[in-house]
């Protein structure tokens, strides 16, 4: 069986994820703060707080400089007249196949961050699940949406 032709996401996605991760991962700094609030900063506890903070800081750096790149590197999508094929996952790799005849509706979405990079995400809903292609060029996203809905209309529909 021939492999479908897989596409990568646009490299600009990395930038978007770097921004969003840099904010989202700030949340983890709450752990050393909570620890300090409960146990104080004297003696042994001081070192616990510092090492926690260092760990969280490393995680924060990784989530900005490594994870977006790896996520981008591992993301693939393929769409043809019969199905949508999504491959993703850095550590846990997942491949999902959605027959086009099951697609109920397709949306493109664009938050402020995606908009500032002229990107959009495509959301594909079936009767059971929702999948997202996270960051495509907005022109391409529209085309992909169009393509899916055209193909899906051709496919016979029955829940």
């Amino acid at each position, binding site marked *: 069986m021939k492999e479908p032709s897989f596409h990568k996401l646009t490299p600009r996605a990395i930038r978007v994820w770097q921004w969003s991760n840099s904010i989202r991962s700030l949340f983890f700094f709450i752990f050393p703060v909570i620890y300090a609030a409960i146990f104080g900063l004297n003696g042994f506890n001081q070192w616990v707080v510092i090492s926690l903070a260092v760990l969280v800081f490393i995680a924060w750096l990784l989530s900005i400089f490594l994870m977006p790149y790896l996520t981008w590197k591992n993301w693939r999508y393929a769409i043809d007249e019969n199905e949508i094929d999504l491959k993703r996952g850095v550590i846990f*790799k997942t491949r*999902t196949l959605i027959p086009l005849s099951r697609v109920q509706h397709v949306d493109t979405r664009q938050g402020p961050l995606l908009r500032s990079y002229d990107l959009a995400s495509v959301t594909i809903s079936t009767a*059971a699940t929702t999948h997202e292609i996270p960051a495509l060029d907005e022109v391409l996203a529209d085309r992909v949406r169009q393509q899916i809905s055209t193909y899906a209309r051709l496919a016979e529909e029955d829940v």
Partner: protein
Amino acid sequence: MSDFKRQHPVAALSRAFGLIRGNIVTILVFLFVGAQSESFPFLWWTLGGFAFLLVVGFANWWRFLYKVEDGLIHIKSGIFVRKNLYLTKDRIQVIDITAGIIQRIFGLVQLDIQTAGASSRAASIEAITRDRAEAINRLLRRKREDSGEEDIDDAEFEIEDDIKQTISLPNKELLIAASTSGSFGIALSVIGTVFSQIEPLISESQFYDYLYSILPSQTDTMFYIALIAGFIVFAWLLSFFGTLFNYGNFSLEIKEKEIVISRGIFEKKRSTVPFNRIQAIHISEGIIRQPLGYASIHLESAAGYGDDRGTGSILFFPLIKRKRILSLLDEVLPDYQKELAALKPPNRSLRRYIFRSTFLVTAITAGVWWWFDLNVLMWIFPILAFIWGWLKYNDTALGWGDDILVLRSRNLSKSTAYIKKKRIQDLSISQSPFQRYRNLCSVQVYVASGDRGKSFSVRDVELEDGLTVLEQIRIEGVNATIDESLESETERQVIQLPGWV
């Protein structure tokens, strides 16, 4: 029926009672707390609240209008915000006719028309006469005169009302079903919730002292053990009678194009499920039921309101001897291929299954045993977990036929799911780093059920098998056929499903 109609006035009453029943815990707590204070005008609050609910119910009834035309139902509802609902017969998944206690006093029924995914009872007529409900039911399922764009299955959709066969549940099996019901855990959690709400009230009273005096308890430990045992017995009784009342008078009518499931002693429910709306069937053998040779059969429908809220699962048969499942399914669903070969996970998966199920339990047991210096007997938990892991491995199987996929797995109960390939909404195969190293994968399949769908999965099967299944779903979309027989693979562990004989 081309004019707008109002429901039977009893709808006002049943709506009021429905509101009470939906908020029973809140109301009870409120009244309990209120009764504690002396200045609380208990009677007035109760009467006033009830009167208010009646007025709301009445207004709802007054503003609710419905009209049924050929293949289309139109409902106007809402006191202030008017809602117009149009529903065509093409979209109907399941039709339920329920007769609750209040409705039964007046000889009425509730009609629920369920479409795919809607988790609220959007098209629900709360109180109409049974005749009219049946008339609507017939009208909505009549053959369409004007055939626009529609499902192929519906093209020859002609309702024949003659019942081909009726299967009922014998009393003995009903009792077994009730006493081994899995809703035991749910009952326990419900009791726990209610208890936590009223606990402060109880502890202030003499209730504990009273319990302490009547229970056979010399020490505190004995007292708590007796208390827990009491809870469990109470939960069991609740689930026993719950199942008994819900599934008493169970009968299954098989018709030409649909099945009708009727059940319930006090609240009677009749669900009509067209065959072409069944998304999947799965057979579940509970840990207590399996040794007794019993199983229950469920079906998944895309309707948003199955037996439980939000899921489209409908209990198709509450309890059946394992040996009889095949003959029953052959009669009811002859187009499902039931006997086929399936592949087990390879031997190298066994250690993963056992590791997964024992790791945490062993660590906790060891820790607790070390720190608290407990009895050696508690090492029984890791041993049980080990057996559980082995059972899980043993029960996992993945099989496929021309148009069907079978996934068998075990959590606590062993579940065998039959899914038509054309009903699969999506299929995922995933790999963790360890699975990648061992060339294994997990397969997960989603079917439409309720508003969120239902997934079935098997873990740690050969990557190659996962890819084969993926490829088949791909080909299914192209409407081509494949002939790949399992016999060619010699050294693989091939088992015959369903293995219930």
